[in-house]
């Protein structure tokens, strides 16, 4: 019996540390394991005993690329617990700072982490030698996203202006104006990015995912919405734990998340796009059509185009929000602290991020649950790999390995987040 092993010890161009082990026996895939050995970080545990007001500052530390996602899901969970009504002006500001995060996170992933795969480069530095204009565009696009986060959040790494109830300080209209020209440039750069990604070569691969994302009556979902799926799920955020379950698997420090009824599911740009295409701006929809995307895209390799389309949307949405901005009367609302549980769920760049907290009458956290998008995608990542390896089992080892790594990077996995540069072993005989 011939056994082959594909082994990548440290996956490059993903955030965090993980490894991949694939065993092939007689040309059949016997085993696929995404080993997350990034150490578990125990945020859910050490949040216990902390004051509710610390939650945006503590959970922001879970991620250096998507701190806003953590801050927003966490404050909304606390506001839900206390029954706080957040006025529209504050909610619009939250959407605006979140646009900044989408822009910088997507720009980083598209150009620095994923595009090299499609063009045959080891890394972005090699890509930069042949495509300097593309990389310069990426750097400026990322910087504009970061500048928006700095303007509203105080700084781009672990922003300091977000609090339960709103912000510590709301900007004046005049403070937002200087970013308008940059955001217009960014919108055009994002359109160029859609065109650029549309020219890449994509393997023909369209698994039948169950997509899960937020959905809102009028807006492309970022900060708010019900949780819906492409197989009929339609629930309030508060019902999340009745439908989704996390489990610990031996080969990963990150929990695997499943739909109780049906198993693996997909969150992130493809899911948002498939479930909310009609809520994209006309310009973003047209950019998608010009890139030959249909309103539903099942090819995970084409997620790079979808991220670019979302970047167009985020730039346009930021411009719209700035034009319409009226400073709130107060930067934050008072809170009626009480013993309660609350849930919050927002769309991080990588997909839905769910938080639940139980606090006591003094506002001290008694327990916490945080489900990042990457843990939710882990079963799908492994399913994709199983299917891809089965279809490509006769490829030479180095090409098969490249394909597997590229497939993991389709998910823009944030391994540090998923545990509270991938090692791939292909075991082939």
């Amino acid at each position, binding site marked *: 019996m011939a056994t082959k092993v594909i082994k990548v010890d440290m996956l490059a161009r993903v*955030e*965090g*540390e993980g490894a991949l082990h694939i065993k092939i026996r007689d040309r059949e895939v016997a085993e696929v394991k995404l080993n997350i050995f*990034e150490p578990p970080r125990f945020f859910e545990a050490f949040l216990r005993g902390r004051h509710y007001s610390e939650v945006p500052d503590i959970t922001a530390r879970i991620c*250096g*690329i998507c701190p806003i996602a953590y801050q927003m899901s966490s404050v909304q969970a606390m506001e839900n617990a206390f029954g706080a009504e957040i006025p529209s002006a504050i909610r619009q500001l939250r959407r605006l700072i979140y646009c900044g995060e989408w822009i910088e996170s997507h720009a980083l992933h598209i150009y620095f982490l994923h595009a090299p795969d499609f063009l045959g480069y080891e*890394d*972005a*530095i*090699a890509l*930069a*030698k042949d495509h*300097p204009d593309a*990389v*310069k565009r990426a*750097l400026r696009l*990322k*910087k504009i996203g*970061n500048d928006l986060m700095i303007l509203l959040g105080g700084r781009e*790494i672990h922003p300091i202006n977000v609090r339960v109830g709103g912000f510590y300080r709301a900007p004046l209209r005049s403070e937002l104006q200087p970013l308008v020209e940059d955001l217009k440039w960014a919108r055009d750069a994002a359109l160029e990015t859609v065109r650029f990604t549309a020219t890449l070569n994509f393997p023909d691969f369209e698994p039948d995912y169950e997509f899960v994302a937020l959905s809102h009556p009028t807006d492309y979902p970022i900060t708010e919405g019900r949780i819906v799926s492409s197989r009929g799920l339609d629930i309030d955020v508060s019902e999340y734990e009745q439908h989704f379950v996390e489990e610990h698997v031996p080969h990963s420090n990150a929990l695997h998340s499943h739909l109780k009824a049906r198993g693996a599911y997909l969150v992130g740009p493809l899911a948002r796009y498939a479930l909310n295409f009609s809520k994209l701006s006309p310009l973003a929809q047209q950019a998608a059509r010009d890139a030959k995307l249909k309103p539903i895209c099942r090819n995970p390799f084409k997620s790079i185009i979808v991220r670019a389309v979302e970047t167009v949307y985020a730039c346009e949405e930021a411009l719209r929000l700035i034009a319409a901005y009226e400073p709130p009367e107060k930067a934050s609302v008072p809170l009626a602290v009480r013993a309660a549980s609350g849930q919050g769920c927002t769309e991080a760049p990588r997909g839905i991020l769910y938080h639940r907290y139980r606090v006591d009458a003094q506002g001290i956290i008694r327990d916490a649950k945080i489900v990042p998008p990457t843990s939710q995608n882990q079963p799908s990542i492994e399913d994709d790999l199983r299917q891809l390896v089965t279809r490509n089992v006769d490829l030479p080892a180095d090409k098969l390995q490249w394909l597997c790594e590229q497939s993991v990077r389709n998910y823009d996995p944030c*391994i*540090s987040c998923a545990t509270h*540069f991938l090692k791939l072993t292909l075991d082939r005989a």
Partner: protein
Amino acid sequence: MSKKTTVVIGIGNADRGDDAIGLLVARRLRERLHPDVLVHESTGDPADLMARWGSGLRVIAVDAIIIGSEVGTIHVIDACEINSSSAMFRSQSTHAFGLAEAVALARALGTLPSEFAIVGIEAQSFGVGDELSPPVASALAGAVQAVERLLVSEQDSKQEKIHA
């Protein structure tokens, strides 16, 4: 001609032991008020570094390094000598991007400043929440002086150009 031609960038993480040294050097320099020198602090993210050093500026970067010398040794390195596979620059981020990647990327894009010196302090410990280790703490003054010597030599060569 603008007199602001030099940028000093202290690189590091204030909360990771010896990784704070670059930032502390920058702060000490800022106190000493060199009016024609810009002083920045950076976490070492390549996009941030490249935005700070701009174009046409002379750059002095200060960072913790690991090259196997005695801890606390101060090295002055020409950025042309390093490439992205240089293991010497301690990168604390799981994103694994740092000064070496920034230099390599800028070189690939043709935007690397032509005069780029790195003052590297051999470091040893990067524990979360730790202070500087004693040999690195002792090197702080020397590292500041190394940067100041580089700045003075730039002044001297400017004077020579004027008088020639």
